[in-house]
């Protein structure tokens, strides 16, 4: 499991969206608390003391800006998640001290990446991921299997990091190329297959890095 798991509060009045965010954050290993309006947000914050807050602006009773202005969440970092896409609102949100501002609609892997980025900023601890006998020291670029160092190329390590950060989610070969190789890399998607095969072999993760038919690959981790 990834060790930088966090307790994240989702404040969003639209239940379906709230659930959707919750399901995805849970997939990659975070713990979630849901709140559907301003009042619930305040009481739930007191009770649960989350590490990070995803906050919709347009919610009943107290809107998102209001909650921040009233310092309802003390020093807990906040990411705005909202349909308000104009720049003024963005600037207002960021000026109020939000760590990030995500405009709906967004892709879930984007949300996950931004959440990870904020978590790394606030808790600069070494991220360690462990599964079976494999331990990955994400910040040190070191991988150990059964206590012994395994040599990975840079590309292999980046691919592994992408899989870990989006664990339990299937990622297409194209997406993996974009995320691990970069957008400017124009390679064959079979490059991905080759690297995946090497990773499986080197880390003994044949049972965890699954090939999903017609989709791509998924690093499956017990939740």
């Amino acid at each position: 499991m990834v060790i930088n798991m966090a307790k994240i509060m989702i404040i969003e009045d639209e239940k379906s969206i709230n659930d959707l965010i919750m399901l995805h954050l849970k997939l990659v290993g975070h713990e979630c608390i849901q709140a559907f309006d301003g009042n619930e947000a305040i009481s739930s914050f007191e009770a649960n003391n989350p590490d990070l807050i995803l906050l919709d602006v347009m919610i009943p009773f107290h809107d998102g800006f209001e909650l921040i202005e009233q310092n309802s969440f003390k020093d807990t970092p906040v990411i705005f998640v909202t349909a308000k896409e104009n720049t003024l609102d963005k600037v207002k949100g960021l000026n109020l001290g939000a760590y990030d501002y995500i405009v709906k609609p967004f892709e879930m892997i984007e949300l996950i990446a931004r959440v990870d980025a904020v978590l790394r900023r606030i808790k600069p601890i070494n991220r360690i991921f462990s599964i079976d006998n494999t331990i990955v020291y994400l910040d040190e670029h070191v991988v150990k299997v059964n206590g012994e160092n395994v040599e990975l190329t840079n590309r292999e390590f980046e691919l592994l990091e992408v899989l870990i950060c989006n664990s339990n989610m299937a990622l297409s070969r194209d997406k993996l190329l974009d995320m691990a190789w970069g957008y400017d890399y124009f390679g064959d998607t079979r490059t991905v297959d080759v690297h995946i095969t090497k990773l499986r072999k080197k880390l003994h993760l044949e049972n965890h890095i699954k090939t999903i038919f017609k989709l791509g690959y998924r690093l499956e981790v017990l939740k």
Partner: protein
Amino acid sequence: MRFWQKIFISTFILFFIIFDLGAYVLVSYSSNFMLSREIDGGVREQSVILSAIQTTILEVESVNMEASKDDVRLNAIVKPLADFYKDQGVTIALYRDNSLVYSNTPNISSDLLNSSDNKKNILNQKIDNKRYLFVASLIPSYNNLTLVYVKDISPIDTFSTNISRLFIILTAIMCVVIGLSIFFLLKRLTKPINKLNETTKMIAMGAYNERVLINRKDELGELGEIFNLMADSVEVNIQKLEKASEDKQFFIDNLAHEIRTPITTILGYSEYLKNALNSEEERILATDHLHVAAKRIQNLSVRLLDFAYMNDEINELHSIDIQRLFEILSNLMDLPLKNQEIKLETEARINELIGDETLILSLLTNLVENAARASKANATINVKAYFDEYPIIEVIDEGYGIPADEIAKITEPFYRIDKSRSRAFGGVGLGLSLCKLIAKQHHAKLEIKSTLGVGTSVRIIFTTL
């Protein structure tokens, strides 16, 4: 050129042409008149002198027969007369045939002397800046003797010159006086026009609340009033248009939002189902959300079609049997209400109503659905039809009630008091707006009364039926 300038210049020019023309006519007429009087006077005076000379010659001839032929004697006769008249500005000359006998006058034109018998030769001539009147005639019975009467009539010229000068001075004074008065008069007269101009410009630039203030009882005052009336109606219409456009924009914004949320849900969950490693439980949650989202879009599309249909005029109104209407309503609402354990009671105290049955039914189902949404289990919803001045249908619930400040807003499209609650029941926020439209089509009034915690009553008052 400005309007006032045109009027100013044309009035000015016209005035001076007429004034100076008049002055010219006046001056020339009066100097002619004076001249003719001078001539008459001169002719008369000459006749007096003539007869005096004639008498004197006759008297002298009675002593000396040849006196008329003797120049020295004639001189002696004429001179005292000439001396006497000289003081009065009159000089005379006496000729025998064409030769001068006596003269105390300087210049004499020779053509005066060609006079015949009894006719008098009259000449008015300017010599050395002086005007003279010459009157010449033969002395009766002495036909070789001609008397020339000369009078200095320069005062006539002096008079013309003076009066012309006077008129020039007068013209100059008039020029200033008239010019200034016309100028100020025109400024005053055209001020309302300038005001109208300014105001029209302002209104054209979008200041629709500008009005013109002209305190006058004339046509311009009237124009000002009519202009203001026009501006009023323009302002009202512009406001209506703006309101309509705002409403439309509001509707579209809301519609976009209403559509975006379920679409986001559908996209998100379908992707989740496709990519994520999920449990049975999570899968059910996801499919539930998918179902609700799809249902919401469906409801929305049905409502939008209703809306589109409602914006057309309904063609025919029929008599509706209210008893039957209530039966259909009960049947339609039976299942959904049973699920919520809510009772529906109907009471028809009037038999019929004029209207479109489908629309009235749609109105009632909407109201009953709203009532059910606001009600707790085991509550009752009453639907009554009765007559109180007008035919009235009333839907009464025992629900949560509506806060007083929200009653006015609830008929606006997409307005919901409790968003999540309404959505949980599949509401799209168009129900009451639709009711309002249907009521409008029937020229009926929607009257909503509500007490928090007690319930709400909605009355449809068919004011024209």
